[in-house]
């Protein structure tokens, strides 16, 4: 894996920055509902910089909702969410845009701009921050997720697994402080899942904070062998730290 030797993913050995000790993402007695009954309630947790977490729970438990609260697509209906020590309620629209540049997200539904080729989609976070993508970094990255041959393909022509890998590439191209992944292995075969996990572990070693929503217990077991990952479980609208019995 050449990724470590600098390039797009590794800005050297840039470990956790000045915010060390503070939480990258902090929930304080947070509740959320979509207008009906409470979906999440009394959630208080802090993701420390450089930590690796999994988020599990049955389908419909609110994993995606929780992640959306983590990148300010949703605002809590009660309580307080702070990203990089700033209350999301106090963020202007521009602040939110800037915050999202520090948070790479692999969305569950992998949304792309369907009229632009894959490579352009992957570099989109750079484009919208008026930064020029480095062609070599992009080639490395696409190679690593196994999409080098598809750089010019339009997203609608990709398979579910290819879309997921492209989404991961897009999430990490800015070398963000935090990476949130929503069921990133949902459409991947086991071999690809492991490669993706390895990439996430690698990113974590570089100091990135990782949060992966998944119900793939095998993946979690595999990860625990490589990294000190903790598991959060949504149960009865609350989030608990799961035991070691996975």
């Amino acid at each position, binding site marked *: 894996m050449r990724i470590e030797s600098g390039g797009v993913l590794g800005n050297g050995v840039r470990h956790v920055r000045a915010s060390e000790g503070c939480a990258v993402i902090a929930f304080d007695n947070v509740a959320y509902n979509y207008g009906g009954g409470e979906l999440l309630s009394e959630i208080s947790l802090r993701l420390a910089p450089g930590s690796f977490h999994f988020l599990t729970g049955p389908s419909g438990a609110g994993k995606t909702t929780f992640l959306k609260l983590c990148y300010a697509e949703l605002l809590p209906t009660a309580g307080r969410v702070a990203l990089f020590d700033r209350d999301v309620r106090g963020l202007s*629209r*521009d602040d939110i845009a800037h915050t*999202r540049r520090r948070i790479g997200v692999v*969305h569950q539904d992998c*949304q792309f*701009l369907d*009229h632009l080729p894959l490579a352009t989609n992957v570099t989109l976070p750079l484009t*919208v*921050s*008026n930064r020029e993508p480095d062609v070599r970094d992009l080639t490395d990255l696409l190679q690593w997720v196994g999409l080098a041959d598809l750089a010019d393909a339009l997203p609608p022509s990709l398979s579910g697994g290819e879309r997921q890998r492209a989404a991961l590439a897009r999430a990490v191209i800015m070398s963000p402080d935090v990476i949130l992944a929503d069921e990133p292995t949902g459409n991947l075969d086991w071999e690809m899942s492991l490669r993706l996990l390895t990439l996430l572990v690698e990113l974590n070693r570089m100091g990135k904070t990782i949060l992966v929503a998944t119900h793939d217990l095998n993946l979690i077991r595999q990860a625990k062998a490589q990294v000190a990952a903790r598991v959060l479980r949504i149960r009865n609208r609350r989030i608990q730290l799961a035991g070691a019995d996975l």
Partner: protein
Amino acid sequence: MTRFRTLLSDLMHADRHADRVVPPTGHTAWLTLFTAGAMTFLAVFALALSLASGRLADRWADALARTATIRIAAPPDQMEVQIRAVLDVLATTPGVASARALTDDEQRALLEPWFGPDLPVESLPVPRLVELIEEDDGYDAEGLRQRLAAEAPGAVLDDHTRWRRPLVIAAGRLRLLGWASILLIGGTMAAMITLAANASLAANAQVIKVLRLVGARDAYIVRAFVRRFTLRALAGAAAGALAGMIGVALLPSADAAGGFLTGLGFTGAGWLLPLLLPPLAALVAFLATRTAAFRKLKELT
């Protein structure tokens, strides 16, 4: 001022990336192009109308405001005496700059269209005319009438004001209507382009959502839309202005009689005015799209 400079840099800044992130949309593009073209075409005529009626109002006000005529009807033997008396009265009337009796030739020229060239004006009992030119402040028409009645009973003052004033006012109103039309046309264009921009933004809701998720600021997304609509409006308006100017140029040129309709056109540097319309249309499109986009973005995400 800084705000204005930001506006300008937004408009000028050639950001091809921002342009490309929004897919080209067919019908709103044509709607904008067509609206800008049609509205500018109309604006050229409204402008021509304003300028022509302005010229007309000035000409009438100028030419008519300064002269009046006095008609003298008297038996031939008293005619000279009465003319003399009228001129004497006028010479001592404040506000009258000068006065003179029309010569026989001038009178013949005036009557020729009706009676032919060989009219013996001297021997006919036609009224004789005295023309007076007033000073800037004008004279007291009622006072003059009373003095004329006393000194020259056959003399009648015809001061044109009765029919002159409404004509000048009408021409002035026409000019105002022309300008109001241009404003209305501009407003309509702004409204149409706002609708088109909103339709385009709504059609691209998904694109906008993705852009927001990867960290695009509103200003970045807005710029992509604004540039498109501004450039389209500029192109449409340029075509519309050109067509309008050709249309005006093809109107019959002003003849010696200077009739109103034949005077509808641009003269000299006036031809530069319709060239201002395309940039103006682009500015309207720029502001309309920008306002619509910022508002719509808050709705969408």
